[in-house]
């Protein structure tokens, strides 16, 4: 017991740990709120109180009365919409039509009409009530349909099993049909209530918390397994009076306790925050009252469901913790720990996210730790797996599978800890690398601080390998073409038009446009002539006309688009803009692409996080820090040499990731359209906007480079504070990964998007914040690095 306490203390006495937890809690809460605060959900958020009042009002009525009341209110809103529409109409016929419709309502449903007048007065601008009432109406329809859904389960099974292929009693399909019906049978008399569902669904559907919990697991494993190895204290730690086994068990218990507390804190905060955002809900209602959980086969109320949800999160976190602990014990190299741990979890995540259910690989999708993390699916959606033609309940099977994995990882971790020496060994390529290093990369005599740091970074920390791989990747990615984005059928003809028209507006191009209009008009006349030609049979007329019509159909949309652009360019020319034709499909993606920007951002940030920490942390680890700092020209010079190397490394990574695209783009489309003003491409930009396409691209890349430098500086700051390579990599990965995953589908969080929507203030703010943060972190890092003494107590902290 005492050992457990001491191991726990190794984690809990770290201030950085608490700072990390608090920071992650803030990020988690911010992201949860941000993902709810989107355009589609704005009404629900802004009028949350009104929605709950409406729910309470309808809940007090009997089901039939509630249905009548909602139907009446829906009608009232529909009438109010018509009343609000009338002043905006121009056409006399329309006004007469809608007025007579309103008169009819006045007579047939005076109560609804009266209410509509009130609504029209109060909600002239946004009619938010309509959306809320519609939402409640959908819920009421669901409540009405649920008993039939459950009651007809067996008859649906009987019906489907009549099909050949489903009727074989030894087949998975037959077993699945009847097992499903049997497993739902106990829900026959479940009472469904009208309630506020969002406080539950918002918390359950939020996935970013899982990434944070995995990061906490990594962090705790660093404290428990990695620190002692780095300080060569394992020999001491393993010589305990009760033997190594008790030590490793104590460590694992400490790990599990910490992870359990972290899960409770984070998931608890999610439920609390979503209740604050959306209001409370009736926790005693059955979980099936929430339409999203119609297919939950458990007889649980909402509170029980939430508790089981958290329980399975704990299970998933404990299994993950046992796996990571095993990785940390089995491998001595931090790089391998990171690669295997993050790589395996990353692969599991990709398999779970991207395999479609019903594909040949769906067993891999569901026998997956992220399926358990996804509690809403795991407990909230009934599923049977096809195991050798047997229908096996997915959540039971997966739980047992991972329980076995948990036990296996625990045993393996204990055995490895007890048996292995746990000393850092030379890696696979170390001997070869040492030979190359000795032959080609030697520093003879004295050298400058910068060259010395460069040598340490590239050769001693083996970053040259990553840089060579990056160079190979960059060269490989630079080969090939940028594919044309064909989305509409008319894009093919549009591409043909633009291949000729792109560039300055010349008299020849204007003539081409005019001729094309005449050509299309002549085709229409041609169809007329074909039908008027009596020498042709009717079938011949149809065939010829269809052929001509195909041409018109193929070209018309593209031509209209070109014409629209031409008219806009003419008007821009009058305003003094150097208007030019430009292929909108190609260059709109060149200037702003949410997918490419996100991918590039994540890639170069991940590389920065892997590469930068070793510049500052290595000397802390090998205790050379006090030796290297008293250089001839002082600590400041050393610091700035390291910063310069960091900058060069960041620039190299950024260029390797981002440059290949521009090389391929220029190879495919050339540079002729680069000097086209951006206003020619985006109709929403004011004519006063003077940026060209290439200016916009360079600005975009510059801001992203500032963000890369920001990531670099924050990583450096963490490195100097944490003094541990792996620690910094894990913390920075989760601080990058969590918000990035949350922003993946939010296209407005992109520099390109801000640029093309002329959101200058956001761009300037981003740049200013980046520069300020870079300056501040560099200043603080410099102070910390140059001023602090490395006391002996560091060796034992």
């Amino acid at each position: 017991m005492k050992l457990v306490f001491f191991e726990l203390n190794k984690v809990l006495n770290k201030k950085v740990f608490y700072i990390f937890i608090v920071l992650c809690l803030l990020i988690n809460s911010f992201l949860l709120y941000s993902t709810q605060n989107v355009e589609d959900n704005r009404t629900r958020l802004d009028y949350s109180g009104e929605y709950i009042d409406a729910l309470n009002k309808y809940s007090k009525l009997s089901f039939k009365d509630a249905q009548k009341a909602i139907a009446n209110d829906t009608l009232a809103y529909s009438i109010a919409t018509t009343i609000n529409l009338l002043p905006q109409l121009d056409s006399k016929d329309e006004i007469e039509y809608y007025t007579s419709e309103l008169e009819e309502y006045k007579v047939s449903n005076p109560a609804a009409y009266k209410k509509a007048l009130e609504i029209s007065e109060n909600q002239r601008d946004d009619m938010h009530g309509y959306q809320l009432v519609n939402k409640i109406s959908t819920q009421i329809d669901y409540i009405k349909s649920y008993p039939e859904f459950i009651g007809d389960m067996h008859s649906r099974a009987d019906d489907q099993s009549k099909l050949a292929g489903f009727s074989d009693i030894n087949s998975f399909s037959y077993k699945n049909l009847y097992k499903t019906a049997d497993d739902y049978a106990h829900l026959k008399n479940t009472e469904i209530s009208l309630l506020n569902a969002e406080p539950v669904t918002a918390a359950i559907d939020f996935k970013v918390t899982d990434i944070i919990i995995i990061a906490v697991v990594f962090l705790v494993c660093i404290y428990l397994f990695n620190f002692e190895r780095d300080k060569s204290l394992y020999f001491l730690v393993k010589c305990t009076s009760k033997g190594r086994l008790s030590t490793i068990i104590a460590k694992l218990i400490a790990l599990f306790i910490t992870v359990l507390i972290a899960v409770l804190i984070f998931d608890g905060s999610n439920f609390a925050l979503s209740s604050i955002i959306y209001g409370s809900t009736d926790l005693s209602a059955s979980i099936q009252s929430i339409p999203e959980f119609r297919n939950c086969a458990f007889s649980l109320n909402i509170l029980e469901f939430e508790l089981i949800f958290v329980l399975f999160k704990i299970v998933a976190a404990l299994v993950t913790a046992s796996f990571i602990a095993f990785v940390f014990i089995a491998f001595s190299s931090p790089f391998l720990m990171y690669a295997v741990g993050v790589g395996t979890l990353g692969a599991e995540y990709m398999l779970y996210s991207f395999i479609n259910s019903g594909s040949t690989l769906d067993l891999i999708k569901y026998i997956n730790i992220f399926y358990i993390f996804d509690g809403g699916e795991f407990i909230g959606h009934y599923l049977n797996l096809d195991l050798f033609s047997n229908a096996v309940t997915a959540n039971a099977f997966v739980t047992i599978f991972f329980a076995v994995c948990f036990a296996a990882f625990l045993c393996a971790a204990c055995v490895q800890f007890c048996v292995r020496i746990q000393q850092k060994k030379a890696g696979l390529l170390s001997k070869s690398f040492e030979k190359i290093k000795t032959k080609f990369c030697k520093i003879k005599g004295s050298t400058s601080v910068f060259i010395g740091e460069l040598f340490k970074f590239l050769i001693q920390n083996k970053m040259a390998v990553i840089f060579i791989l990056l160079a190979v990747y960059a060269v490989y990615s630079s080969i090939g073409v940028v594919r044309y984005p064909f989305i509409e059928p008319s894009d093919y003809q549009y591409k043909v038009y633009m291949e000729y028209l792109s560039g300055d507006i010349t008299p020849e191009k204007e003539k081409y446009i005019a001729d094309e209009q005449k050509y299309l008009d002549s085709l229409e006349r041609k169809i007329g002539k074909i039908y008027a030609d009596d020498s042709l049979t009717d079938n011949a007329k149809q065939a010829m006309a269809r052929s001509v019509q195909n041409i018109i159909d193929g070209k018309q949309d593209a031509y209209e688009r070109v014409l629209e652009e031409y008219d806009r360019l003419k008007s821009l020319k009058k305003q003094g803009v150097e208007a030019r034709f430009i292929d909108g499909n190609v260059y709109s993606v060149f200037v702003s692409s949410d997918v490419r920007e996100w991918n590039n951002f994540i890639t170069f940030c991940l590389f920065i996080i892997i590469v930068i920490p070793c510049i500052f942390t290595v000397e802390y680890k090998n205790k050379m820090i006090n030796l290297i700092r008293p250089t001839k020209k002082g600590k400041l010079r050393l610091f700035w040499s390291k910063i310069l190397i960091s900058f060069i490394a960041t620039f190299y990574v950024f260029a390797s990731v981002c440059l290949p695209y521009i090389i391929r783009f220029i190879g495919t489309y050339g540079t002729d359209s680069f000097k086209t003003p951006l206003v020619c491409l985006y109709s929403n930009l004011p004519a006063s906007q003077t940026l060209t396409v290439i200016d916009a691209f360079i600005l975009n890349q510059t801001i992203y480079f500032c963000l890369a430098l920001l990531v670099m500086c924050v990583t450096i700051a963490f490195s100097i504070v944490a003094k541990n390579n792996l620690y910094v990599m894990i913390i920075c990965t989760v601080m990058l990964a969590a918000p990035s995953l949350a922003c993946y589908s939010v296209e407005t969080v992109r520099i390109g998007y801000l640029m093309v929507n002329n959101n200058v203030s956001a761009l300037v703010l981003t740049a200013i914040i980046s520069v300020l943060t870079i300056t501040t972190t560099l200043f603080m890092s410099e102070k910390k690095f140059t001023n602090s003494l490395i006391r002996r107590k560091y060796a034992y902290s």
Partner: protein
Amino acid sequence: MKNKIKFTVIFILCICLLYGCSSNSNIDYSDTYVAGQDSQENFINYYNEYYYASSGDNYYFVRNGFLYAIDKETRECYPLCNKSDCLHDREDSYELRKECKAYLNSTDDQVVYNDGFLYYCIDDEEYDKDGNHHMLERMCRLSVDGTKREIIYTTEDYTICNFRVHRGYLYMEAAKFAADEEDPNGEKSASLDKAELLRVASDGQDKAEVFLPYNEYRKKYKYFDIRETKFYGNHLFLRINYSKKGKSKSTIFNVDLETKELKDIGDNLPLAYDARLTIFNDKLVFNGDGTKIYECDFNGENLKEVLDGSKIVKEYNRFAPYSNDGKNLFISVYYVNPKNGYEFKLSKKLISCNKKYEYTVHEMPIKYRAEIGFDKDFFIFQKDKDEKTPLYLINKSDFKSKLIYKFP
């Protein structure tokens, strides 16, 4: 060291053996219809997009993105989904519809059956590494129990109009977005309908090839329009309409599937314009101008008149041999306005003939115009699929209809 070499050799041998095995090793290449491996369109009418596929036990068809199966024994029709906690086509929520095993999200209602799989086409989209958005067409296949799906072929450059699976290959009639190619008018066309016939292995293991460049034939056959595509044995028969000197004509191409040699066999055949074609008793059977029905060999020789519809049913002038079940030929009966060639008057009459062309006239429970699927036991009929009218099964033994499914 020795063990390492041993294991490496065994591993390489295993790879070679696996590579040597191909899905075409069990194909019967007889020059006749072989059930299970051959394309079924000769027996199930695909005209006007009423597609049905037939396996040993079920018929299959697609409506509004959902795959349905009709059990041949019980004559029950249901969406092909093995989940009883699913409302299938009656789900309101799009998310729940997507989770239904019967939901294909196919581009149209085409489905074909071959060797235990159902083939269909979907629209999809993807972003490439440069962030460019691409709309794609994918050919997919689904196991007949509805559980396993896989993608066979993906294209961005074509729109797949029709497809068949025959003897280990998936054939796709594709419209090509080849901007600026010339059409027979000498006009530059942005896109070409039915530009090429593509072919890919039915398990998707090989790259697709252009099997027939349809667009090349447009140079000789003006306003070339493929009306029917029928695979039979080692042949592909194409019934095409084209224009010659202002007159519309029809002809039949016979394509050898092995050599890809194409022969126009319709020159000396009395084909009616937009005639119907079927392959019955290893002969081509088609209707000529007027009311006569003919048969000939696959090379267009040994032409013989087999029936004169006007002697069987007097008040109608069109007799279209649109399909057969291997034992009986089916001829639909209707009236076409001879002045314009496209006004129709439907009838309930159906003529069936055995291999000796001994005929029987049946009365169908509904008026129809060859838009009817079939099987040796049943006809399948839906009056207007766009209006979600009910689906009927018509029993061939008594020509009585049974309502088998009402669409939501």
